[in-house]
């Protein structure tokens, strides 16, 4: 036997030993890539702000309560200015006052901006009482007009509606229901979609055929008519909260199929991975394979898909409510706000009632930016 010149030594030297925190490597890599994507960061911040402002502390951030009806019907937005009543520049924001005029065309009183009146905006002012987070009684609002000093002044930054309600406050409140519906609805969709997708992909055979046909069946219906039919079936007598939950369920029912299909596809490809076979050959149960080896592998994908699906959820609610089939007053959502603009008269005489639209667009964009950023970041090895 010829003597090998080079012989093997046992353990390999480990030159990478200096690398610290290696176990966190995947997530730190994701974070590193995510951070580089400015748009995604902007999206994430926007979403955080939306949920913080509208979702949690709407009462605090809005100067008026949601259904408070002032006697300023259809008041124009009051612009913010940075000058004192004496006309000097100041850093403190002020608003012009409003004045009632008799509109001869509409034959009613309307409110327009009166540039002669200027009121200072106060921060952390006492205002209408509410319960913070539904628990803590409070009456401090982020901003408003000091009612004791200027009892006649108002601060309708986005104007008021037909009933004299402050649109700015209503947009903040409306965001709460719309955004929450997006989140809850998506969470339920996620659970249903993942369970059905996982079962279908893992077991295959008859179960798979059944689930697939079901998703195709649901997916084959055009969305809006199906919404309409289902939403119209909700009894008018139900309480608004019940309607809200029914609506969420309807949206979930219509949308789980897409996710289930994606999860099924992922599971099908992961199922053939050698590490799954390795677990099987070691005797692992179906449950263990599913929960330890398959579902975690779909997570990053699913998070991305789910994020990108939320805007659709929000838009569906908006569309339904706008059609009058979704949420109804006294509940306030972005869709409900837009419903009030359905008449041409409103667009003509109170165009500021369209202000919710840019907010909806912003929310949708924010979710898309975040979702895209996540998608790029979750795949740090870039297809390798």
């Amino acid at each position, binding site marked *: 036997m010829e003597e090998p*010149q*080079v012989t093997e*030594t046992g353990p*390999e030297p480990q*030159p990478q030993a200096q690398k610290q925190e290696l176990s966190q490597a995947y997530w730190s890599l994701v974070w590193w890539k995510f951070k580089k994507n400015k748009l995604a960061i902007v999206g994430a911040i926007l979403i955080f702000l939306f949920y913080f402002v509208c979702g949690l502390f709407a009462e605090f951030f809005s100067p008026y309560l949601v259904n408070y009806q002032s006697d300023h019907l259809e008041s124009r937005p009051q612009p913010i200015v940075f000058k004192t009543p004496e006309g000097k520049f100041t850093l403190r924001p002020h608003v012009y006052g409003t004045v009632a005029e008799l509109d001869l065309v509409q034959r009613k009183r309307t409110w327009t901006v009166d540039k002669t009146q200027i009121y200072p905006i106060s921060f952390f002012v006492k205002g209408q009482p509410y319960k913070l987070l539904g628990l803590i009684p409070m009456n401090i609002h982020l901003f408003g007009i000091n009612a004791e000093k200027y009892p006649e002044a108002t601060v309708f930054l986005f104007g008021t509606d037909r009933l004299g309600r402050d649109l700015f406050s209503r947009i903040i409140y409306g965001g709460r229901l719309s955004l929450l519906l997006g989140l809850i609805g998506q969470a339920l969709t996620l659970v249903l979609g993942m369970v059905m997708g996982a079962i279908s992909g893992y077991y295959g055979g008859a179960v798979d055929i059944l689930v697939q046909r079901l998703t195709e069946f649901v997916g084959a219906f055009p969305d809006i008519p199906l919404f309409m039919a289902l939403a119209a079936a909700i009894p008018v007598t139900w309480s608004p909260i019940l309607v809200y939950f029914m609506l969420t369920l309807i949206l979930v029912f219509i949308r789980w199929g897409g996710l289930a299909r994606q999860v099924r596809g992922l599971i099908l490809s992961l199922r053939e991975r050698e590490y799954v076979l390795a677990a099987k050959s070691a005797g692992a149960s179906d449950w263990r394979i599913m929960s330890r080896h398959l579902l975690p592998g779909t997570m990053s994908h699913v998070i991305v898909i789910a994020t990108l699906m939320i805007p659709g959820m929000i838009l569906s609610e908006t569309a339904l409510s706008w059609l009058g089939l979704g949420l109804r007053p006294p509940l306030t959502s972005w869709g409900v706000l837009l419903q009030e603009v359905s008449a041409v008269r409103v667009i003509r005489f109170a165009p500021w009632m369209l202000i919710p639209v840019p907010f909806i667009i912003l929310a949708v964009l924010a979710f898309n930016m975040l979702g895209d950023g996540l998608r790029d970041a979750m795949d740090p090895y870039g297809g390798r």
Partner: protein
Amino acid sequence: MSEPLLEIKDVRVEFEVRDGIIRAVDGVSYTVNRGETIGVIGESGCGKSITAKAAMQMLPKPGKITQGEILYYRRDKFDPSRPTQLVNITKLDPDGELIRQIRGGEFAMIFQEPMSSLTPVYTTGTLISEALFLHRKIPVTVGDQMSQKIMQYRPVTKEEAREISIEMLQKVGIPKPHERVDAYPHQLSGGQRQRVMIAIALSCQPFMLIADEPTTALDVSIEAQILDLMRELQESVDMSIMFITHNLGVVAEMAKEIVVMYMGKQVESAETVSLFYEPKHPYTRALLQAIPKIGRRSGERLASIKGMVPDPFHLPPGCVFHPRCPSFMPGKCDRIVPTWKEAEPGHWVRCLLYEDV
């Protein structure tokens, strides 16, 4: 007489990634001669493919050539009487007109993965024709001037492209080329797909073929067919081949000259016979001993190189191979960086054993 086609001179390629800069290729120089095959061997990740891609100006992001030059002695493809033009590839715009003519038309590349390098939605005929439309011209005689034929070139027509495609498929040994010209890639086996890749690469009659592990994914039986095919075609069209592989058996058969790379540097280069029979660099020697040889008695232990390739961010000082080197000389190898020396005529090596220090 060997005449250079491509000269790679002291090229360095760097990737800027999160953890720092990876020097994937560091001071590599070799020359590809016209009509000859050069083999490039080395472990995975040592920079073989990146060097080849640099020569095509096809570096993946964020790779950059930060040093050196790649000279291409460009002959006119259709008129050999025109003088050879010297093109510095490193200076070309990666999306420019000239490099696109060179890529595909004059240099062709075959990749390791036959599955993913063919677009699945086109038939093999379409894939070959596409290359033909871009890079092949048909000569036509436009006149006779004092018994001197005046030639001009026109693009191939659709019918001609189909005919040439069928001819190419036949040349690369695909059975029933008349039918297979309309087949989609997924209808072909792995070996057939690789042969289609070669047909595409060769259809434009390139001056150089860069074959990046063209047979690694294939069975020996098909590998044998493809190697034979490449050699045959090389003889008939006088083409150079840059053959990248880590299979020493393949390179022994194919190459006239071999470059051995380790961690982005070339450590040895010589004529094939000299390299296999008198390897000089300890890394080359170790590689040659580490392969089980067919026909040799079984059951022996293999000689293997201890340890593994170092982390590119923490390269060892001195000779990068020293932590694994069986001829390691303490005090020398871990301090002095060996230089690229001609140890014997035509036999270059980068090792302190062959330097007086």
